[in-house]
């Protein structure tokens, strides 16, 4: 029988996923690997991982990678890409990393139009540390540091990174996708492809924000987490291309 689909070679053969059931990190890292292979970029890939569950990828991916201090991935990627322009430099960051502690690094790299790609995982919560409130936590959503739910009077409102970066002149491509159904998984893959192509074309800063789930810290099973994305997350974080230049 002809094999028409297999596991991407960019993930170690003998590795069993340690991600929680329903976690979409493994989906996204698969998509990145498939795009790298399809674009023949595996031997140019230089991945800067964020801190948190993002950093777990270091033990799975077979291409070059480093881990930045919490929030600093865009700064690390800046130094890397500026001195190694032939490498495909991309960051892989969660919402705490990209939108909270790394806000200055994220916005400044976007504002300089650094020719890098950001894969931004937005699941509205801190995963590895156990479900604390993120800048993207929905209003009313419970977190271990907001046990009564996010209250705008005390915590403000969820931050929309695509829209915030859209205020800047330099970024080339800002898109929000999800992985909550097969169609959106395909769109996410296409967005990653385009973002990498932008870097090859020297267009500058591209970001793919991917709305994902965290069943463990949301306290929902994987299937109900998919419903939560559709019913709660996507109305707050509408999908689509925010900028394409």
């Amino acid at each position, binding site marked *: 029988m002809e094999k028409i689909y297999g596991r991407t070679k960019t993930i170690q053969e003998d590795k069993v996923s340690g991600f929680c059931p329903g976690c979409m990190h493994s989906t996204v890292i698969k998509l990145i690997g498939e795009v790298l292979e399809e674009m023949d970029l595996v031997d140019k890939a230089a991945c800067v991982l964020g801190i948190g569950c993002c950093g777990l990828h270091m033990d799975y991916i077979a291409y*070059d990678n480093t881990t*930045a201090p919490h929030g600093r991935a865009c*700064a690390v990627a800046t130094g*890397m890409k500026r001195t190694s322009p032939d490498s495909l430099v991309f960051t892989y960051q969660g919402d705490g990393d990209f939108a909270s502690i790394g806000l200055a690094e994220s916005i400044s790299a976007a504002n300089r139009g650094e020719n890098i790609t950001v894969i931004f995982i937005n699941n509205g919560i801190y995963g590895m540390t156990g479900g604390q409130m993120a800048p993207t936590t929905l209003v009313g959503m419970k977190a271990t540091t907001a046990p009564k739910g996010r209250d705008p009077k005390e915590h403000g409102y969820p931050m929309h990174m695509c829209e915030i970066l859209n205020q800047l002149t330099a970024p080339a491509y800002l898109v929000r996708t999800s992985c909550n159904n097969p169609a959106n998984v395909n769109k996410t893959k296409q967005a990653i492809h385009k973002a990498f192509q932008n870097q090859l074309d020297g267009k500058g800063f591209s970001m793919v924000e991917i709305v994902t789930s965290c069943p463990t810290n949301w306290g929902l099973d994987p299937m109900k987490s998919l419903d939560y994305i559709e019913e709660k997350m996507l109305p707050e974080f509408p999908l689509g291309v925010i900028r394409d230049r």
Partner: protein
Amino acid sequence: MARVFMKGCEAIAEAAVRAGCRFFAGYPITPQNEIPEYFSRRLPEVGGVFVQGESEVASVNMVYGAASAGTRSMTSSSSPGIALKSEGISYCAAARIPMVYANISRGGPGVGSIQPAQMDYFQATKASGNGGFQMLVFAPSTVQEAVDMTYKAFDYADRDRNPVLILADGVIGTMMEPVVLPEMKSDEEVAAIKASKQGWACVGHQLDYANRSWIQPGQWSTLKMQEANEDAAALYESWKKDVQVEEYQVADAEIVLTAYGISARICKSAVDLLRAQGIKAGLIRPITVHPFPYESYDHIDYNKCKAVLDVEMSIPAQFVTDVAVGVKDRCPIETCLCSGGNIMSRDKVIAAAKKIMEGK
């Protein structure tokens, strides 16, 4: 080679360029602004890259990235800014990334004062970030030394795959002096240095899990983490051979001054003046403040020496704690201190030495 008249900060930057530094990221803070300013105009001339970071934190992480890609890279700052860089320095040490940084130190703690001081001794030599890592720390007392140390620092950083710190101060950074600049490394030499790192640099490799670049400032495996720390400890132990010190007129000294950096330079001229007045003074000047030349204090003749006089621009004194480890209670240690951006004066040092010798 011809001598040129240069400000310390600019001379440090030029020395780095000549050593093959092709990436600098920094953030403005007095009194080291001439370093990023110089790099911003100089690096493009040699095919290098300058980035003004949005903060010290971002700048040191840009260096983390550039050095991870195999480029000789540097950052600089002054005391409060160095504190902000401590996160990135610790990550560079953990990930074994070679980089060089300079602290043109000023008064502290807090925002302190913008004038010269030596208030960062503990930070520089004991804990420049979390996790107990160590670095070679060089303390120049002249602009020429700052140049020579910066030039050599890149070799040490590459040899050890570890950060190297130039611990200067606002006097060295802002003073102009004649210097002989080191030889400019050719483009071919700079390219060869970068090429030699491509095996481990995070730039993209053929798909091969075992041989991918994997530059990690931490480990998920506790056993691997311990191994990494054991490797680092072995490296630090190997630095005994790298200790540098100047011992001046110590053998017959009845009073031994001890200081580093600009204070030591002031002390050296005080030694000459004291000797001219019949007081047998000497000087021990650590050139590497980490590792520290403890053994030099064994060269003091404690049958003759009345006291060791610790001279530093820090209140409370910090350097004195290492001096005490070297002296081992074999004679009293007195201090001559200033702080807050006030520069040590030769007259003050001489007066302190005379007071000890006169038994007052």
